[in-house]
């Protein structure tokens, strides 16, 4: 049965590709959505079967056939469902399905072939992601890993007529390839060292070993896999593709950020938790990179004016949280955050899509405002998502984020906790900046009088970008605002409910909960032999520090509320203050608006040198001189030799006869006087 979970989206892909856009839009949308719904149904059945098993050894395995057989090297095409992949397939198919439904309305302006192309990519994306999370060994995971990279390229560059979209697609693909190189090396090294690519056997081989004190082979494998994860999951230094990925259609951003793709890196570390636990130094690197990414991306989120870019940086920041959790060994907390984040980030992106849809393509926060009255469904669902991501008590993000912060603090890295807490404050600020700018205050349609009051540096940009007021064609777009149509509203409402409720599967023990999800996931993060003896070991150590956890929860709740309050002060009560702050610290503002000049630095230090290397050495040197030289050289040698040897051909019959005679004499002479 497991095979049907990835196979159904693949079928949807084949139908939509094969029919080549000859299907009417309603059918291609329905095929894609139903494929996802069916996959979700199968997933639910399978996970239910999984839950009926005893806690220690929960797994469902299906081997389809032996993919590669070469002596001792056997790679079966095996799918394995364990608690970790169970959670992942529910997220991918469930939230993926909602995004498909939403897309049927969002993409309605496309022509039928484009529409079918869009949905075929979407289904293919889900197929590869499901293969990635269900694969029982590195090679199958790698197929999915590369597949989602390909689909992200196809979908980010979906509007390929736009050069910026085509570039963003290429950027995503190339940046991911850098991580992939490290990933492949890590996999090969793991095979050389342990002789297996199966996750369970690898964990079994590692189980009896002691964690590496010094940096050794295991640490190197872990580090290489982590570099692969930084590419896919947009961590420093390879996060640059994600903000640019906003060029794709908005539901694609939701799919990439919430259900698929970026979660792959977190999943990879969770899947190899035993390996990473044996490499404590690498774990520390993971934690530090995660914390730095969280705060670094959060800073840029504070000043971005594109609604989707704010969300993109918030995704990078939240992924940083997940890596922080992984790095301090709180694998379950990291996956839990992945789970809750999937709900509210999908919600936020789809909400942003609804706003953009209503405003006929307007993405700039400076030209929004006051949408609360016209888009009530979008507003309320978006607000839920924002509250959840900010970590307001009682919503999904609160439970997972506090679990991460608590575990970070408990791991003894107080400064990492401090970074996490600061990021938490920033998350609240930038999310509510977005909410207040988009939904509250006066409406600031492009070119209208109100748009001038946004602030000095922004107004200056506005003059440059917006040009003179063109009331005739720009202003009326706000006149007939319509809230999300039903196909968009229903996913929003479902996801909003999820954003409120998803956290309760991990209701912490200190409030009398069971932290069910942590206990559910724990067997996936331990060596197989140890999994059965796991029962009850965890609770004792944690119980002692409930008072500490309570203090930390109060602190971070306070931070979340303070961030919201601060955003309200800055963007509702005193809208002139942000502009004055920007004017006071122009260098800081420029630094943040330009995203830390990271793209420029990469361009100068990497892209341009590689370009010039390619052009001057590889093209003009190697290709023109060496390769072309070799080809032309062969021709030249033949011509020159012919020119020299042609003089033997005198045309004189007598000379030929003489050479025949001489040859005969020489041969006879050789045999006579030998």
């Amino acid at each position: 049965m497991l095979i049907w979970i990835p196979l159904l989206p693949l079928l949807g892909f084949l139908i939509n590709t094969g029919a080549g856009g000859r299907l009417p839009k309603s059918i291609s949308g329905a095929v894609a959505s139903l494929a996802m719904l069916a996959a979700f149904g199968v997933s639910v059945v399978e996970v239910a079967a999984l839950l009926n098993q005893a806690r220690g050894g929960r797994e469902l395995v299906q081997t389809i056939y032996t993919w590669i057989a070469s002596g001792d090297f056997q790679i079966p095409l095996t799918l394995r469902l364990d608690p970790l992949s169970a959670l992942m397939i529910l997220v991918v198919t469930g939230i993926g399905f909602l995004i498909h439904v939403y897309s049927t309305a969002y993409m309605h302006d496309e022509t039928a072939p484009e529409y079918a192309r869009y949905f075929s990519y979407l289904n293919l994306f889900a197929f590869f992601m499901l293969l990635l999370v269900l694969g029982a060994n590195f090679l199958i995971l790698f197929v999915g890993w590369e597949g989602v990279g390909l689909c992200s390229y196809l979908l980010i560059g979906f509007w390929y007529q736009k050069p910026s979209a085509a570039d963003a697609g290429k950027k995503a693909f190339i940046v991911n390839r850098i991580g992939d190189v490290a990933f492949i090396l890590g996999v090969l090294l793991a095979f050389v060292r342990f002789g297996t690519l199966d996750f369970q056997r690898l964990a079994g081989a590692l189980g009896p070993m002691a964690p590496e004190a010094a940096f050794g082979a295991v640490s190197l494998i872990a580090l290489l896999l982590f570099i692969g994860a930084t590419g896919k999951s947009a961590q420093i230094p390879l996060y640059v593709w994600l903000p640019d990925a906003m060029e794709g259609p908005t539901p694609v951003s939701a799919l990439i950020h919430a259900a698929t793709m970026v979660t792959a890196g977190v999943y990879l570390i969770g899947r190899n938790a035993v390996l990473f636990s044996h490499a404590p130094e690498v774990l520390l690197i993971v934690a530090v990179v995660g914390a730095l990414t969280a705060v670094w991306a959060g800073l840029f989120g504070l000043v971005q004016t594109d609604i989707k870019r704010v969300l993109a940086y918030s995704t990078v920041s939240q992924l940083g949280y997940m890596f922080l959790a992984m790095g301090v060994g709180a694998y379950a907390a990291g996956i839990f955050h992945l789970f809750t984040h999937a709900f509210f980030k999908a919600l936020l992106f789809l909400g942003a899509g609804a706003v953009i849809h209503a405003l006929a393509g307007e993405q700039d926060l400076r030209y929004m405002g006051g949408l609360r009255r016209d888009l009530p469904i979008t507003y309320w669902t978006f607000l839920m998502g924002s509250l959840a991501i900010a970590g307001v008590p009682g919503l999904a993000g609160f439970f997972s984020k506090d679990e991460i912060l608590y575990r970070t603090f408990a791991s003894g890295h107080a400064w990492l906790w401090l970074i996490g807490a600061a990021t938490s404050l920033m998350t609240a600020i930038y999310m509510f900046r977005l909410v207040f700018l988009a939904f509250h205050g006066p409406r600031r349609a492009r070119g209208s009088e109100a748009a001038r009051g946004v602030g000095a540096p922004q107004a200056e940009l506005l003059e440059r970008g917006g040009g003179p007021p063109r009331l005739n064609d720009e202003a009326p777009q706000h006149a007939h605002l319509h809230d999300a149509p039903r196909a968009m509203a229903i996913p929003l409402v479902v996801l909003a409910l999820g954003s409120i409720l998803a956290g309760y599967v991990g209701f912490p023990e200190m409030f009398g909960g069971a932290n069910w999800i942590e206990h559910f996931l724990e067997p996936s993060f331990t060596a197989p032999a140890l999994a059965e003896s796991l029962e009850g070991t965890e609770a004792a150590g944690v119980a002692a520090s409930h008072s500490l956890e309570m203090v930390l929860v109060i602190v971070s709740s306070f931070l979340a509320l303070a961030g919201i309050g601060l955003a309200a002060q800055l963007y509702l009560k005193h809208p002139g203050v942000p502009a004055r702050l920007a004017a006071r610290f122009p260098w800081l503002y420029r630094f943040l608006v330009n995203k830390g000049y990271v793209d420029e630095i990469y361009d100068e230090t990497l892209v341009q040198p590689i370009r010039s290397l390619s052009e001057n050495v590889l093209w003009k040197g190697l290709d023109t001189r060496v390769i072309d030289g070799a080809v032309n050289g062969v021709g030249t040698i033949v011509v020159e030799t012919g020119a020299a040897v042609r003089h033997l051909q005198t045309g004189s019959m007598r000379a030929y006869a003489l050479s025949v005679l001489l040859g005969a004499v020489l041969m006879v002479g050789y045999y006579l006087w030998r």
Partner: protein
Amino acid sequence: MASLNHYLILSGVIFTIGVAGVFLRRNLITILLSIEVMLNAVNLSFIAFGHFQGSADGQIIVFFVITVAAAEAAVGLALVISLFRHVETLNPDAFRQLRG
């Protein structure tokens, strides 16, 4: 009584005369005739070998050679006639258009 060596020496002499004819004469027809002389020198040694070994093989080969020589003379003379029609000379040094 003539021995095998006598025949072979005679054959060598005739062959050398033929070779000298090919290289020294400047008339295509004479050159063709010289080639015939060389062929017949070889025929003579075949016959001599065959005779002194008591075998008919030498004579059989000579029949073949005569046949081939007849064909060769026919083709060669046809070529010579054709060449003569083109350049009005039989000097082999005149035909150097194939010089590389």
